[in-house]
């Protein structure tokens, strides 16, 4: 097995150790892992830490939905979408909302690699494509 592949596997195992019972990242476990890594100082520590960070980020995206809204009044819509996602995935999800004026109106919710969108900008884009 090549070194990067070994590091990747190790990063995945470390991610497994960082999760709590709900499958979320546990800050205390991550701190503990980092301390022991620093102490052991394995070969390729920098690469392992980078891959570990990537794994943490990727995993966090699976339960942390990020919503973008066109105007502040639409926060409720994003929350409604989140509830629907919770019932369809069966997971307890987190939501962070930020304003994106380029949407004009409507919202865009990203969970993992999936993006759910209903905004004026997306409709205009679809209209533009239909003319092409």
């Amino acid at each position, binding site marked *: 097995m090549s070194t990067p592949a070994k590091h990747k596997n190790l990063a995945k195992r470390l991610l497994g150790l960082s999760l709590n019972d709900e499958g979320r990242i546990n800050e205390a476990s991550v701190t503990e892992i980092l301390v022991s890594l620093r102490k052991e100082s394995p070969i390729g520590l920098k690469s392992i830490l980078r891959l570990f960070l990537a794994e943490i980020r990727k995993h966090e995206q699976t339960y942390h939905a990020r919503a973008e809204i066109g105007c502040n009044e639409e926060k409720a819509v994003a929350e409604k979408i989140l509830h629907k996602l919770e019932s369809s995935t069966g997971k307890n999800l987190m939501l962070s909302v930020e304003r994106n004026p380029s949407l004009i109106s409507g919202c865009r919710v990203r969970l993992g690699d999936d993006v759910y969108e209903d905004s004026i900008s997306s409709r205009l884009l679809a*209209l533009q494509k239909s003319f092409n």
Partner: protein
Amino acid sequence: MSSITDLIRKEIENLSTDATQTNVGTIVTLADGVAKVEGLSKVMFNEMVEFPNDVLGIALNLEEDTVGCVLLGDTSSLKEGDEARTTGKLLSVPVGKGLLGRVVDAVGRPIDDKGPVQSDQQFPVERIAPGIIPRKSVDQPLQTGIMAVDSMVPIGRGQRELIIGDRSTGKTTIAIDTIINQAKINKQGEDSGDPNFRPVYCIYVAVGQKNSNVARTIKILEDTGAMDYVTIVSAPAADNPANQYLAPYSGCAMGEWFMENGMDALIVYDDLSKHAVAYRQISLILKRPSGREAYPGDVFYLHSRLLERSARLNEESGNGSLTALPIIETQMGDVSGYIPTNVISITDGQIFLETDLFNKGIKPAVSVGLSVSRVGSAAQIKAYKKVAGKVKLELAQFRELAAFSQFESDLDAATKARLDRGARIVEMFKQGAYEPVPVEIQTAIMWGMQNDFFDSISVDDITRAVSSLKEYLYSQGKEVCEEIYSTGKLEESTEQKLRSSLEDWKRTFS
């Protein structure tokens, strides 16, 4: 003005306003027309992926964490960190008769400044080849108009006949001649008003060629009036390897439309050596394991899945056909190379062009010994079969004897006669580029050769005699040629007419 507003209003009304769900990813590396994308966890193999600035890609490598996408079009606007999204669609190209007379790129976009392609139907570029049940044996001829090919390596509709040879040996010329001949036959058939006439539509796929060569081919087809029946799919050498890889599949999808709608089509892949090289480049960038000559392991499948799509369908499936003429360039006449042997084993025969013959002025430089058609003879018309049956054997014997006769000073009469006949046949087969000869004229010339009409003419004069006979048959021998064309047979009465015509010609020829 009101009609414009109505049009826009209608478009808006038809627009779906539901929330959309897409699967997205981020470009992590971008090099040589290939993007590695992190994310896209729900992407399917061969699915079209959308990048910013209307750049499209195809998901070819599905790995654990990343997806390898080959990019189509100008990738200079893309950068690492850009978002990629799935489309849920396979790459498709426009198909139909609206493409005839047009020059398009690998994804079916027009590049000839003649406006948008008139087509309301799309076919995916990658499709499964017809199975055993809808197929039928090859039984209809596809005349190339080249005497050496039509007599010795006849091609049938639905056949895959490889054209193979070194660079500059006339491979493309044979393919272009065949296309020109189809156009001539199509015009003749359409003018005759015969309801049973089946035109052959042509698709010429140019892969990795110089733009000047493609432009020259287009010019030739336009000048000969063949362009009305031809679609050109161009992925020149300057195009990215993804487009060069896709072009043959796109052309094939366009040809399949004709086949599946009960029509006949001919497709020329010029050439599959460069196609394999483009695929090798993509595979190496995608970090797929390489094998012999650095080609990936599935380079055989690359060509077999393409050529298997050419078929002759039976009556229940519409009776259509797609004939393929793939071209392969050899190095120093070596047919035992990796890609040549692969394609030879896939196709139903090959026309091998020899550099030595070409340099001796024997054009087309068809090698008798190495050229073969495994299924085409079943499709030859009876009249032609009757006169061309022995010619391949005679020519092969001539080549063998010619090699030995160099060391013999005293030859017996039979050997000398065989050598004389062979030399005359070689001269008879010499043919200029882009001058295909109709099958009925070919039959008459071959009949003349078989019946000793050329024996009294010196070998050096045979080419002139053949040209003279052609002219005679086009003008005064029309009646007998039409009889051969309409019946497809050489009855005794026809042979008598042919004899008197040729005797008449012989008197005038000096």
